[in-house]
C-alpha cells in the first residue's frame, strides 16, 4: 500500500516542531519519544503501520485551533485520531505528519432534555453519551460494535452505522450541529442547537459527516437524543439455506416492517460461536437471522407475529422469540461474540465492508464462495443484512508470507463484486487507506475530481489526512482558483469546465 512520500525536510524539524506544539498544549501532551510513539502506529487495522512524526493531545478546542494554525503555517500534515478503532485505516499516521488525538476532549458539555440534544466533545466514547442521559430515559441511537470506546468524533468522521441504523439511521441522521476547525485554524459553527435549527443553511454539516478527517477537525458536536424504546424483543430464525435466509430479509422489509436490527450469521460463524456460548444450533441450520423489533409493547407483539409469519413462509425451520430482557441479551450474545469466536479459529482475520442492494445478497454471497476457493482462504459471513451491509471475515495467517496479500486481494474482489452488483465500497467503516485504491472502481475520474474539489475548498494545501480516501493526492492547484501568471495559464493541458 502506497502512501505519499514523507517529506524529509519536515521530519528533520521534528524537535523544533515538538517545542512549538508544547507551547500550545503543554509539555506532557506532545509525545516525541520513540518508544511512546510506537503504540500510535496503527488504528484498528494492524496490517498498516507508520510511525507518527509527533503525537499531540490537545485539551480544549482552542488548543486544537492553535495546533492546526501552527501546523498550517509550518506546512505540517495532520492526521486526526479518536480512540484508534477505525477498520479502514482512517487514523493511520504519516511519518511526516502530526497525529492529533482527541482522547482528552472527553466531556459531555450540556444536556438539553427538553429539546433532546446533548452537546459533547469529540473524544467522548459513543456509549458515554447514552450513559450520561440514561437517567432521563434517553439514549444516543447509533451503535457501532465499537461503541464502548469509539469516539463520537470518529463516528462523525466515518459516518458510523451499527445494528440499529436500519431503523434509526446512521450518524449523519443524529448530528444537529457542530463546531469544527479548518486547517487554517478558522473555527466554524455549523447546524444548530436543536432539530431544525439548520433549516435553510447549506448543509455543510452533511459534507463534514463521513469526510474521514480530510476536511476539518470537529471540536464540538450537538447530537440528537432519542427516548429508549419501551420494549425490545428479538427473533432468532434458522434457515436450511443461505438463499432462503437472504430471501427472508427482503420479504420482512417487503411487508412493511422495519426492524430495529436484522443480522445474518452463516453456519461457520454459528459453529464458532456455539463453542463460546455452549449452545448447539440445529444441524439443519445453514444460516441464522436475528431480527430485533422495538417500540411499545403492543406494537412489538404485533410485529413479532408478522415477522414470524413471514419467516415461516420463507422456509424458516426454527423460530425463537425472546420473552425477557435476559433472553434477548442471551440471543444477541451469539452475534456479539461472532468476531472473537472467528478469531479463535485462525491466527488473523481481515474484515471488510461493502454494501449491496438487499436482493443481490444471494448472488454476491455465492461469488464469495468461489473466491474462497480461488485464494485458498477460508471465510465466514456475519453482517447487517437489513441494509445489505456485508462484513465478510477472511481468515489468514499474517506469519505466512503472502497470506496477508492474498487476504487483501480476496477482500478487494468482494468489494468489486459489491460495486458490480450495484452496491458501494463501504457501509460504515469508511474508505481510509484500506479501500482507497478501489475508489476508481466505484467512481469515474470526473466523480473523483469533483469530490477532490470539495477537499480543496476546505484544505487547499492538502495537509489534513492526505493519502486517505482518494487514490491520488489532491491537485488543488489544478482546479479551484485559476492562477494566471504572466499571462500563462498553469497546467493548460488539463481539461477545465
Amino acid at each position: 500500500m502506497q502512501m505519499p512520500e514523507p517529506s524529509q525536510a519536515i521530519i528533520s524539524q521534528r524537535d523544533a516542531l515538538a517545542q512549538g506544539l508544547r507551547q500550545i498544549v503543554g509539555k506532557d501532551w506532545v509525545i516525541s519519544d520513540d518508544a511512546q510513539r510506537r503504540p500510535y502506529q496503527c488504528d484498528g487495522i494492524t496490517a498498516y503501520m507508520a510511525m507518527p512524526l509527533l503525537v499531540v493531545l490537545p485539551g480544549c478546542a482552542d488548543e486544537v485551533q492553535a495546533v492546526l494554525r501552527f501546523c498550517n503555517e509550518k506546512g505540517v500534515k495532520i492526521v486526526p485520531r479518536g480512540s484508534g478503532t477505525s477498520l479502514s485505516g482512517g487514523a493511520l499516521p504519516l511519518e511526516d505528519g502530526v497525529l492529533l488525538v482527541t482522547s482528552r476532549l472527553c466531556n459531555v458539555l450540556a444536556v438539553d432534555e427538553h429539546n433532546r440534544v446533548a452537546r459533547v466533545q469529540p473524544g467522548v466514547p459513543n456509549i458515554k453519551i447514552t450513559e450520561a442521559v440514561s437517567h432521563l430515559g434517553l439514549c444516543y441511537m447509533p451503535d457501532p460494535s465499537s461503541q464502548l470506546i469509539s469516539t463520537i468524533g470518529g463516528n462523525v468522521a466515518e459516518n458510523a452505522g451499527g445494528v440499529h441504523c436500519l431503523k434509526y439511521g446512521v450518524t449523519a441522521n443524529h448530528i444537529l450541529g457542530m463546531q469544527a476547525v479548518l486547517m487554517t485554524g478558522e473555527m466554524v459553527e455549523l447546524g444548530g442547537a436543536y432539530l431544525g435549527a439548520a433549516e435553510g443553511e447549506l448543509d455543510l454539516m452533511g459534507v463534514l459527516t463521513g469526510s474521514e478527517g480530510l476536511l476539518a477537525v470537529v471540536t464540538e458536536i450537538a447530537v440528537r437524543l432519542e427516548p429508549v424504546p419501551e420494549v425490545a424483543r428479538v427473533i432468532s430464525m434458522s434457515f436450511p439455506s443461505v438463499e432462503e435466509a437472504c430471501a427472508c430479509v427482503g420479504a420482512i422489509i417487503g411487508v412493511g416492517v422495519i426492524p430495529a436490527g436484522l443480522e445474518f450469521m452463516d453456519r461457520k460463524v454459528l459453529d464458532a460461536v456455539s463453542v463460546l456460548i455452549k449452545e448447539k444450533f440445529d444441524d439443519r441450520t445453514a444460516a441464522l437471522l436475528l431480527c430485533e423489533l422495538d417500540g411499545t409493547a403492543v406494537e412489538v407483539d404485533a410485529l413479532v407475529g408478522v415477522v414470524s409469519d413471514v419467516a415461516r413462509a420463507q422456509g424458516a425451520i426454527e423460530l425463537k422469540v425472546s420473552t425477557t430482557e435476559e433472553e434477548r441479551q442471551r440471543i444477541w450474545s451469539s452475534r456479539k461474540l461472532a468476531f472473537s469466536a472467528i478469531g479463535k479459529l485462525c491466527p488473523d482475520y481481515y474484515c471488510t465492508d461493502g454494501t449491496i442492494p438487499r436482493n443481490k445478497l444471494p448472488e454476491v454471497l455465492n461469488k464469495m464462495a468461489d473466491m474462497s476457493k480461488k485464494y485458498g482462504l477460508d471465510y465466514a459471513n456475519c453482517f447487517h443484512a437489513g441494509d445489505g451491509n456485508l462484513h465478510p471475515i477472511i481468515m489468514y495467517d499474517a506469519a505466512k508470507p503472502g497470506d496477508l496479500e492474498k487476504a487483501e486481494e480476496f477482500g478487494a474482489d468482494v468489494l468489486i463484486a459489491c460495486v458490480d452488483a450495484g452496491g458501494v465500497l463501504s457501509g460504515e467503516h469508511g474508505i481510509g487507506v484500506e479501500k482507497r485504491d478501489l475508489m476508481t472502481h466505484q467512481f469515474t475520474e470526473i466523480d473523483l475530481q469533483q469530490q477532490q474539489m470539495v477537499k480543496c475548498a476546505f484544505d487547499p494545501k492538502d495537509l489534513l489526512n492526505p493519502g486517505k480516501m482518494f487514490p491520488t493526492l489532491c491537485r488543488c492547484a489544478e482546479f479551484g482558483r485559476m492562477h494566471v501568471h504572466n499571462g500563462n495559464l498553469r497546467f493548460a493541458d488539463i481539461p477545465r469546465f
Partner: protein
Amino acid sequence: MLSHIPQAALDADPNVQLAKDIIGNCVHCGVCLSRCPTYAVKHEENDSPRGRIFLMKDMYEKGGVPDAKTVEHLDRCLTCLACEAICPSGVEYSKLIAHGREYVEEHYKRPLFQRAVRELLVRLIPNARLFRLAIFGGRMGRPFRGLFSGTMRAMLDMVPTTPLPAPSPVDRPQTFLPEPEGGKAVKPRKRVALLNGCVQTVLDTAINEATIRLLRRHGVEVVVAAGSGCCGAPAEHMGDEAQALPLVKANIDAWLREADGPNGLDAIVINTSGCGTSIKAYGHALRLDPAWADKAARVSAMARDITEFLVEIGLQKPTTPTGLRVVYHSACSMQHGQRIVNQPKDLLREAGFTVLDVPEGYLCCGSAGTYNLLQPDIANELKARKLKNIRSVHAQIAASGNIGCMTQLAGEAGLPFVHTVELLDWATGGPEPAAIKGQKLAAE
C-alpha cells in the same frame, strides 16, 4: 497482532513464546481502553492495555534493556484486569503483564531509591512481625509527612492512625471444629483450609474471626495450616519472582500436607480476593517446574473465594434482621481477576441486606496491592473518583471482599466499611461488626 520477536529469544524462554502467542491474539480493537483506569485518568494510549501490549511487543522484539518510558508505562498498570475481563478476543493480559514485569526486573536497573522502596515492600508486607514494626516506625514519622512527597509521603499517609488490633488467637495454626449444635459435636460437612493472609492479620483481625465463626456455624471444619502465609502477590506484582516463589511453595506444601492427611481438604478458602487471584494462578506460575507444576495446579483448583464457597454450601437463613442498605464495592481481583460478580451480592441479599452497586463499578479504587504506595498520584485520583461514586448511592454501609480496597477507602468513605463476611456473620447470628456498632448510620 503480528510480532517479530527473534527466534533465539523465543527458544531461550518459554515465557517469551507465551507472550508472543498472547500478543498474537490481540486484534487491536481498543475495547480494553474503555475499562482501563489509567486510560480514564491519562487519556493516553501508552497508559492503556492496548498500548502496553504494544510496548511489550517492542520490548521483546528489541530484546536487551527496556527503555525507561516502557518501564514507566508498565509500572503504571494497576493489574486490575478489567481489560482482560472485557476483551472480546480473550487476550490473557494478566499473564502477559506478569511476565513482562519479570522481564523488566531481570533486565532493567531501577534508580536506587525505587529499588530500595521495592525491596522494602517486598520484605515487609509478607512478614506480619516486620509489618507491625514498620507501622510503629511510620507512626513516629507521620508528623513529618509534609516534608515528603511521592512514595514516602504515600507510605506515611497509609499508616493507620487508630491503634492496631492485638494479634488474634485465630491466626495461629490450628483447627476449628464446626460449632456444636445443642451441646453436641457436629460431623463436619466440609473441611477447608483458610488463608489468613499477611496484612490482614495485622490491620483487621475481625475479618478472619468472622470468617471462621461463619464457616463453623455452617458445619465446616476450618484449618489454619502450619506453614501457610503470604500468597506471594506483593512480590509478584513487582515482577520479583525470586521473592514470590518461596512463599508460593510454602503455601502449597502446607495445604497439600492437609489435603493428603487423614482428614483431607475440600477447598482452600480465601477471604481476600487479591490473594485469591494470585493463588488461582499458582498453577500457571509453576507450570514449567516439573517438581511443582502438578502440586500447584491442585492448589489452584481447590482455591475458592469465601463467597464462592458459601454459595456452594448454601447460606443459612438470617436470624438477625438488619434491612440495611449496603453499597457493595467489588474489588478488581474479585470481579475481573476471578470473575466473581454476583455471588457476594446474592449472599448479601439472602442475608437480608439491600444491595446497591457503585456507579463505574468496573474502575479500580487505586489500591491495587502496593500500587497506592508506588504510584500515589494516579492512585489518589482513582480513590477520589471511587469515593465520589460510593457516596452517590447514599448507602448506610459499604462492603467489600478485599482488605486492600478497604484500607484504601475506609477512612474517607463517610460510612462504615466492612468485609462482606462480617455482614453475613452478623446476619446469621454473629456479633454486630465493630465498625458499625454504636455508629449513627445514614437515615433510610
